[in-house]
């Protein structure tokens, strides 16, 4: 029984990797669509990480964009000002994001903050980050942003190579997620999500596991944010704003299904398709995101995976 369940998850990971690897073949070499597909991978990655934080331990981090941005700015600014190698600064950026996420989590658990106050504190952090980047003009160039470039031939330069590099990163995120969930920590996460109080009484160290979830998730967010900085060729505060990242990630995760392995991936595909459909509406797409979010929160809280599970009667991971 147990071996069988892991088999299903391994098979799912393999199928995801193969299907996503085949996507560029279906795009017929269009650079525009390749870029959209790559962006889809980026948002899937954010959603996988956010899933660990919010989906499993109920910590509403409204600062996905700000965490990704912190990692990106730490990495890029060190490269530009100190002329270090991006290979050294990306891990530093990841570390920054992980520490920030861990500290938020530790402080909120220690102070016994409810979900809403965690939301407010992280929202406030998002705004502080935004204003800090705008204010520290000498380092960050403010609203104008900083131009970045790839990491050498094929790596994170626009083109097919980068798609596979980022796909690799996404698969690493998914594998980390899978390993985390099948470990002792995964069991603890499930207990905490069901009933935090009961988990504490059962002898689970709630503080440690919540902080673990938050810092692991934040590290992944930071990794993707920093990598995106080099792939995108340009960073400014808007790239990592609440509207550009957090909302998309929330909608993606809600669409796919919280607390599932496949949810962020399916949600990412659906969201990208939807986004393409509403693109002709121009500025109205913000409205569409909002409507989508309300509808999803109210009627579709368990996501696509739950529906599929019910329809096919198969245990989808």
């Amino acid at each position: 029984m147990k071996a069988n369940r892991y088999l299903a998850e391994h098979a799912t990971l393999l199928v995801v990797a193969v299907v996503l690897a085949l996507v560029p073949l279906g795009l017929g070499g269009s650079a525009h669509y390749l870029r959209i597909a790559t962006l889809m991978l980026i948002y899937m990655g954010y959603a996988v990480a956010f899933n660990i934080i919010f989906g499993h331990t109920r910590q509403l981090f409204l600062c996905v964009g700000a965490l990704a941005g912190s990692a990106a700015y730490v990495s890029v600014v060190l490269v530009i000002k100190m002329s270090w190698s991006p290979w050294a600064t990306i891990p530093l950026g990841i570390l920054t994001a992980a520490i920030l996420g861990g500290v938020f989590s530790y402080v909120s658990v220690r102070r016994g903050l409810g979900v809403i106050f965690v939301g407010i504190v992280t929202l406030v952090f998002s705004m502080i980050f935004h204003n800090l980047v705008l204010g520290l003009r000498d380092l960050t160039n403010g609203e104008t942003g900083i131009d970045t470039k790839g990491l050498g031939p094929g790596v994170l330069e626009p083109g097919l190579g980068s798609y596979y590099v980022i796909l690799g990163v996404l698969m690493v995120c998914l594998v980390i997620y899978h390993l985390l969930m099948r470990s002792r920590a995964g069991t603890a996460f499930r207990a905490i999500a069901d009933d935090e109080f009961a988990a504490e009484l059962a002898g689970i160290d709630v503080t440690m596991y919540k902080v673990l979830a938050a810092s692991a998730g934040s590290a992944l967010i930071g990794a993707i944010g920093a990598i995106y900085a080099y792939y995108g060729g340009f960073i400014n505060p808007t790239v990592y704003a609440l509207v550009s990242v957090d909302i998309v990630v929330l909608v993606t995760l809600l669409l796919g299904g919280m607390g599932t392995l496949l949810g962020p991936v399916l949600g990412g595909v659906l969201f990208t398709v939807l986004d393409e459909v509403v693109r002709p509406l121009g500025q109205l797409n913000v409205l569409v995101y909002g409507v989508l979010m309300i509808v999803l929160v109210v009627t579709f809280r368990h996501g696509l995976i739950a529906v599929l599970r019910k329809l096919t009667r198969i245990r989808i991971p």
Partner: protein
Amino acid sequence: MVAILIDGIVQGLQLSLMAVGITLIYGLGGVLNLAHGQFAVVGGIAAALCLEAGANPLVACAIGILGAGVFGLLVDRTLLLPAYRSAGEDRLLLGLLITLGLSFVVNGYLDYRYANISLTIKLATPSFEVAGITVRSASAVAACIAMVAFALLFAFLKATLLGKVIRSIIQNEVGAGLCGINPGRIRTLIVTLSAMMAGLGGVVQGLFSSLGTEMGNELTSFALIVAVVGGVRSINGTLAAGVLLGIVNAFASYYVGAYLTLIILLATAAFTILLRPAGLFASRT
């Protein structure tokens, strides 16, 4: 110096107008309204449209405030129902996400439809002098409006039976229900009232400088900071926090620049939550 102080107090009063709505809706409905600034913008833009159609400024402002109220009523009776149906942590989360979604809907629509419209109300006499200090008449009018609104609100809450009912629900919803109070109806009243006060805040913003469609998020975040620092369940605290932060804002913007000021305000809010979650002026934490 005095001019900055007056500016700060007036701005603080305006922020309190917005923040008190967040406090009331959270205290009574258990929903943290992240679309509160959008209520103000809806009211302000409605007033601006009336002004453009050639209406008397007073009538236009009244329509704007009423418009915000109607919008609040609609939101309460439709969008927030699923949140009210659940309880505890679920209601908080649902309310937060629904209003966040709503703020994007309003932003998206207004930016698309009324991008070029903004509310600016000009008074006949731009400024006058009191004891050698030049006071903008807009500031004076704004301060008067805000103070009258607060006086009315306090009188309503302290002196009328309905006000007593409202305070009882804020203290203990179950207990109030046991005394035969219907929280649902009172909630609708309060959301409408709060939306109207937000609309008033929007109009005051138009009086003070100008109100555009893109200002919703900014107003929401300022109001949220004030509500948090004042304590999300205390109305007196909200008023005090509004004036205090208004003064801090005015002086800091003058001396250290806008970005740093906002960071100071945001950090104040963050530390308040962490150190005194019931608010800076709460008698006990």
